[in-house]
């Protein structure tokens, strides 16, 4: 069942989706890397929001909602965006490639690995969009 973003329930729903979505499981079957998202406060978001996903060979091994800033220092990628831009990605108003290419989504981590796995990234976003019923 889709959930409201942002919430711990939304993250848990995304975890389940990633583990059971056949298309994602296939496209991401070579992906090995943790994502640490930092959402900067803006609009209705008053405090920084963080969430973590451990993605491994087409599955999601672990998620954590609102980990500390210092948690997971070895995460393969740290992705930072304003709340408005994340909202626009989740609602399909902002294409994820546009977000990357125009720095609305700022990226820290191996570009070599990211660029050879763009289809995985795009399908991850599709899953995130599909589990989002509403963005607060």
């Amino acid at each position, binding site marked *: 069942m889709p959930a409201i973003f942002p919430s711990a329930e939304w993250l848990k729903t995304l975890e389940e989706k990633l583990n059971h979505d056949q298309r994602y499981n296939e496209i991401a079957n070579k992906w090995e890397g943790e994502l640490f998202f930092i959402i900067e406060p803006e609009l209705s978001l008053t405090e920084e929001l963080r969430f973590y996903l451990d993605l491994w060979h087409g599955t999601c091994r672990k998620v954590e909602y609102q980990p500390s800033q210092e948690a997971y220092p070895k995460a393969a990628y740290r992705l930072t965006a304003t709340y408005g831009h994340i909202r626009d990605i989740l609602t399909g108003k902002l294409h994820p490639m546009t977000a990357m*290419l125009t720095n609305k989504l700022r990226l820290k981590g191996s570009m070599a690995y990211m660029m050879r796995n763009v289809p995985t990234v795009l399908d991850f976003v599709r899953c995130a969009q599909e589990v989002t019923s509403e963005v607060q």
Partner: protein
Amino acid sequence: MQPILRVNLSTGEFTDYLIPDNWQRDYLGGASLAARLLYSTLTKGLEPFSPEAPLLFLNGPLSGTAGPATGRFVVCGLGAATKLWAESNIGGFWGVELRKAGFDGVWITGRSDRAVYLWIDEGKCELRDAARLWGKDVYDTQSLVKEELQRKSVHVAVIGPAGERGVSYASICCDHGRMAGRTGLGAVMGAKKLKAIAVHGSRAVPVTDTERYAPLRSQANRFLKQDNEAKALHEIGTAAAADYSEYLGSMPVKYFSEAIFPSVDDISGSHMAETILTGQSACHACVIACGRVVQIGDGIKRKGPEYETICSFGPNLLIADLVDITLLGELCDRYGIDTISTGNTIGLAIHLFEMGKLTSEDTGGLSLRWGDARQVQALIHQIGNREGFGDILAEGSRELGRRFKSEEEAVQVNGLEVAYHDPRGVSGMGLVYATSPRGACHNQSDYFFVDWGHTEESVGVGFYERHAQAEKSANVARHQDWRTVYNSLVMCIFSNVSPQMLVDLVNAACGLGWTIPEMMKAGERAWNLKRAINHRLGLQRVNDKLPKALLQPYKSGGSAGYSVNLDEMLDAYYIARQWDPSTGKPTEKKLVDLGLADIAADLWS
């Protein structure tokens, strides 16, 4: 701007040319200003290899200012194969050194009666004998000139044997392996018997308001260091998105006949970074450093291939080995030939051989086949030396097609071979190739980035789905204008600074008070001027076309079943451009609105 050095090779005369102030303001510099300067000389019937044909090396107002990827210059003239407007920009350090020597450009005319090179040292100029350089490759020539001048801080722009022999896609090279590859201006230089131009200077590069410019420059470079695209280019080079391009079906395979290359993982920028890459190289003051330095087992550190070279010899010819591709690219560089056109022309030859249009009698006994790096190597030698079948290949793909009654099979537009961004995967490139002033070119607008999602809203470049058709035509036109601004500055298209930041830099460097719309108008003005030049040279609406291969849908891959509707795109494009739909000429009103009344009078009289 500083004067342009005019050199008449027929008489040996040197003069300084002062650029009119209003032209500096209206065209900024680079390719745009070059179009204005050369307009009166580029007339119908002019032959690119004649003494009268001009060859103009020109900087822009940001060249050498340590701005964001602004160490470039441009070479302009009449295309060797296209006989249309030609421009080819190039990085390295040569252009900056020229500015430091007191000139913003070198304008060559005439033809020497013997091989010479031009030596510009702190504003003093001299033509020197180049007999011992003639026949040498571009790397050896650079070394020999430096050795002769006994100066380490000399930068040398050179041609290789291919330029001397009139190969229609001969390049001009500087600073080891930086190339002005497209449109065959190396052959124009060779026809003038000019082997090289060596420069040395130590003056400060002129900037109108240095106090205003310096912090802006720092801010722009700091931004670039954090830019996602620049980080990818630094880490994995221009082949950063090879995998993605193949996934979308926009990387041509087997001479534009297929869209799936199973070995794409083995030739991508990521693979290079994980295997043979040992470092990066940069043009003057560039914080991106997209250039590759690789080591392939013989202990020598050498230039690694960029995206176009990888595709040209890789997927295009079905060669899946980065080491082979590196060496083929290096061989092209040494002869001084463009890798895009070389791979494209060889691809056409193999394609025609498969069709039975070419036989081993035509190829000097060679049985042409896909995926044979040794055979490609042999053909490059033949092209560079104009020997055997290579003498035919040296004329480019259009002439090869014509010779074997198969011009429609050649993947070229107006004589320039198509680069490796397939419109069936990124439709905007169809319109870009069809309307580019120098033939099928990916640098007059790298619209494939926009089709991937790289928008620039403040200049009106938005996002349209990659397979959208006529609805994106006006967007393509705006992007062409935007990139024309880049090509006037002369700034690398990888410099992803915001339009506001760029207009601030231009204002500080040039003493202007422009807004973004005024800057865009300068781009539009130059785009229309180049179009007018081409009409004078004989271009007609019918020349705005795509080759047959690009209009046939792929059967598989990320773009299967799709093809661009070029006619509809062009109709919308002419409306957006305010060009006459029957002739394709810019309307008189449009030209006058852009401040080109004199051009309008010529074009419509």
